[in-house]
């Protein structure tokens, strides 16, 4: 069909074509090097890894934008600091009317966006308006639901009026999203930022200088920054989805820092720590890993059964064994480092005898020759649902299954798709489930809100408590209270009741991890769980 020379030529051409595609791919990329080499000698650069692309850097939307990166570019009116203290940020000061509905912010003078345009009340209002164009998108956030109107009082004064008093309004404004401020030039023509923006322009200490989707993002200092300029010139974020690769890149010295929740496996963290060549740190608790016991199941509606389950497993050993020391056994539902949560609680110790006694007292007897307790012919059988992709949840579920088996409770464990787990939780269709609180700056107000508000699974789990109505009323009062002392007292009462009722069983405190090279100095974890950690950081070459 073909002559042999022609064949050879055609084959040659095909191979050359294939080869050149490959090589072209390479050479083209060479010009796109992420600039770290250029910078290495004179500039102070910190290179870190992040598992996902930083996203479109829209201050008013959520995924796939990454919180830490958004917080490098955009700033809040008020800032959340250690222990829940609120400090002035883009707002120099503020006043709240007696009825708790009007918030007047005096904006900081001489603040400029990275493009040199001024930050004033008009742009603050424009940002609020953009957020309020899509209230459904932000319906999870209290301040957005409570917001009635916003107005520009004068060039540097901005006023926000709420429909009803809502004390955590300021905490909500400290969040990384959605109420942070985009410069005029970043807005799309119709002002609706939910569909995208023109450019990421903020007032923050950093600007996005270079970006290649899925590969890297380079942040450099904002030349117009109003505050103290960062000590480092550049932050390079390399996108490395695999945790083990991250560790090897770090060991090779390609990375200065690995930071984040779950950014590094427990084994690798301990291995790097033991090597002594690097600095490894754990943060204060950022949240609590808990078990949610659903009282709408009549077996779990009995406090004695809930107490028996709590006494019936060795929490300390389980947490240490499974998380290899990266998490800490939790006794409080909310860790003590949030506002209003610093209270001592009685530890529910591991005591199998007590557990058995509680169950006997509740009428759950162990029939002779059987391994599962029964009452009125019904076995004491419960189901724990967990996220099947989460190895910690799975291991903990298996541990509890074994431990509760020993006290005559049959625990069926069911691994689910995360979306299915959440769906079942929200519908209240579970006996036991894993649950996490939100952390700073969301808690404790977001936490008590879901205890009262239906649709998140937590209120549903508490639904058969005799004091539920009273609890809901107290929560409503707390969120609307304008009196600090009264609020503290209410929080105390609510948290004590929840602690005593054991519907939420605290298991462990989750912590953030960081590993960095020894030439990185002054690293500190941000008080706000979602903020970036580069405020005071420096590096010596």
């Amino acid at each position, binding site marked *: *069909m*073909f002559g042999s020379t022609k*064949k050879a030529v055609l084959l040659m051409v095909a191979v050359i074509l*294939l*080869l050149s*595609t*490959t*090589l072209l*791919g*390479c050479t083209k*990329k*060479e010009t*796109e*090097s*992420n600039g770290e080499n250029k910078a290495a000698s004179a500039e102070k650069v910190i290179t870190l890894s992040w598992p*996902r692309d930083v*996203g*479109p850097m829209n201050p008013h939307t*959520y*995924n*796939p934008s990454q919180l830490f990166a958004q917080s490098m570019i955009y700033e809040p009116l008020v800032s959340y600091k250690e222990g829940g203290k609120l400090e002035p940020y883009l707002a120099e000061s503020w006043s709240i009317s007696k009825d708790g509905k009007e918030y007047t912010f005096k904006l900081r003078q001489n603040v400029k966006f990275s493009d040199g345009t001024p930050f004033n009340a008009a742009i603050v209002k424009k940002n609020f308006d953009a957020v309020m164009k899509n209230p*459904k*998108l932000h*319906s*999870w956030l209290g301040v957005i639901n409570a917001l009635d109107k916003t107005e520009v009082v004068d060039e540097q004064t901005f006023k926000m009026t709420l429909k009803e008093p809502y004390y955590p309004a300021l905490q909500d404004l400290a969040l990384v999203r959605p109420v942070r401020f985009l410069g005029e030039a970043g807005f799309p023509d119709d002002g609706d930022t939910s569909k995208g923006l023109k450019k990421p322009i903020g007032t923050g200490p950093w600007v996005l200088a270079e970006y*290649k*989707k*899925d*590969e*890297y993002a380079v942040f450099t200092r904002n030349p117009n920054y109003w505050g103290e300029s960062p000590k480092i010139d550049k932050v390079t974020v*390399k*996108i*490395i*989805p*695999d945790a*083990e*690769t991250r560790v*090897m*890149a770090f*060991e*090779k010295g*390609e990375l200065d820092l690995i930071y984040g929740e779950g950014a590094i496996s427990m084994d690798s963290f301990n291995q790097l720590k033991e090597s002594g060549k690097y600095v490894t740190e754990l943060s204060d608790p950022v949240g609590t890993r808990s078990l949610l016991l659903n009282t709408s199941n009549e077996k779990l509606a009995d406090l004695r059964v809930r107490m028996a389950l709590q006494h019936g497993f060795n929490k300390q050993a389980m947490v240490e064994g499974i998380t290899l020391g990266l998490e800490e056994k939790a006794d409080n539902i909310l860790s003590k480092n949030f506002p209003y949560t610093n209270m001592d609680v009685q530890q529910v110790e591991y005591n199998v005898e007590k557990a058995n006694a509680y169950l006997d007292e509740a009428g759950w007897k162990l029939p002779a020759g059987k391994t599962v307790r029964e009452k009125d012919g019904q076995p004491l059988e419960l189901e724990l649902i967990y996220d099947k*992709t989460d190895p910690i949840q799975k291991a903990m579920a298996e541990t509890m299954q074994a431990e509760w088996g020993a006290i005559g409770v049959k625990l069926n464990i069911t691994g689910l*798709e*995360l*979306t*299915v787990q*959440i*769906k079942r939780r*929200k519908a209240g269709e579970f006996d036991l489930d894993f649950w996490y609180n939100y952390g700073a700056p969301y808690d404790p107000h977001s936490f008590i809100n879901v205890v009262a508000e239906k*649709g998140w699974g937590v209120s549903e789990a508490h639904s058969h408590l005799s004091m539920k109505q009273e609890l809901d009323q107290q929560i409503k009062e707390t969120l609307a209270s304008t009196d600090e002392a009264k609020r503290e007292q209410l929080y105390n009462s609510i948290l004590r009741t929840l602690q005593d009722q054991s519907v939420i069983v605290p298991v462990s405190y989750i912590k953030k991890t960081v590993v960095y090279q020894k030439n990185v100095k002054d690293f500190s974890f941000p008080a706000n769980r979602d903020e970036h950690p580069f405020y005071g950081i420096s590096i010596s070459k």
Partner: protein
Amino acid sequence: MVSYIGKRILAIIPIVLFAILITFVLIHISPVDPAEAYLSAAHIHPTEELLAEKRHEFGLDQPLIVQYFQTVMKICRLDFGRSYLTNEPVWGEVTARMPATIQLAVSSILFAMIVSIPLGFLSAVYKNSLIDNFSRLLSFFGASIPQFWLGYLLIFFFSVKLDWLPVEGRGSWEHLVLPTMTLSLALIAIYTRLLRASVLEQLQESYVLYARTRGIKEKVIMVKHVLKIAISPVITGLGMNFGKLLTGTIIVEQVFSWPGFGRYFVEAIFNRDIPVIQCYVLLAACLFIVCNLIVDLVQLYMDPRISLKGRTDQ
């Protein structure tokens, strides 16, 4: 020839329709509600009202058969919808990531060919020699080692310990070396053995004997006659593997932070980004079909003895 190609291309249509049907069914029997997945990816609290609104928007409240035809029509226009996570058109996101994946697949195939063809050929010609034993060892190793582990080992030795090559990322040619080696080792393992067996089989054929009796040089017999015929199954295999490489570089892309299509797909799975998953499955089906077709054509061209009629009847 033209009518053969035409027929083969037409045959793609029912296969694609079937693939669409399969993905459609899989999505509908999965416990994940697309409306719910969308809202959770967009970080919106799913109220019943919002869910109903989204279900309507996605056409999920229509009869299944209508939904199926709507899906087919959209896919014909290359409209795979928007990603739940990024809100960008899926097709655009996929095509933006394809070059990286194609680059990796092409370089792996080329590398595998460059190594396995001479190695397989030589181990047949010098049967039971040192080179044959070496190729046997390499094949055992290559066929049994898990890819992610090999990737980690290569990074550990060549990047962390020896500091010759970068750990991860895409950029210069150096970034391409380790992922290419990782991907091609398994291919080398298979094709070296395949070619060796095929060459040994050809050596038993009578044409080799006749050629030798006619006094044709051994080199000429081997390269011009034996290798030319023996290589046919290797080409088929490599072609089929090209389709696999284009869709199956997921693990290697993840390990080496290669910004390709496979990594995008992994993220889509974690986020239950259904339009992306659907697009991936369909694209995978199409790539396999196209690669299969190309392989058949190449074989036809290499070995005209394979009759056109015989092929089309299959």
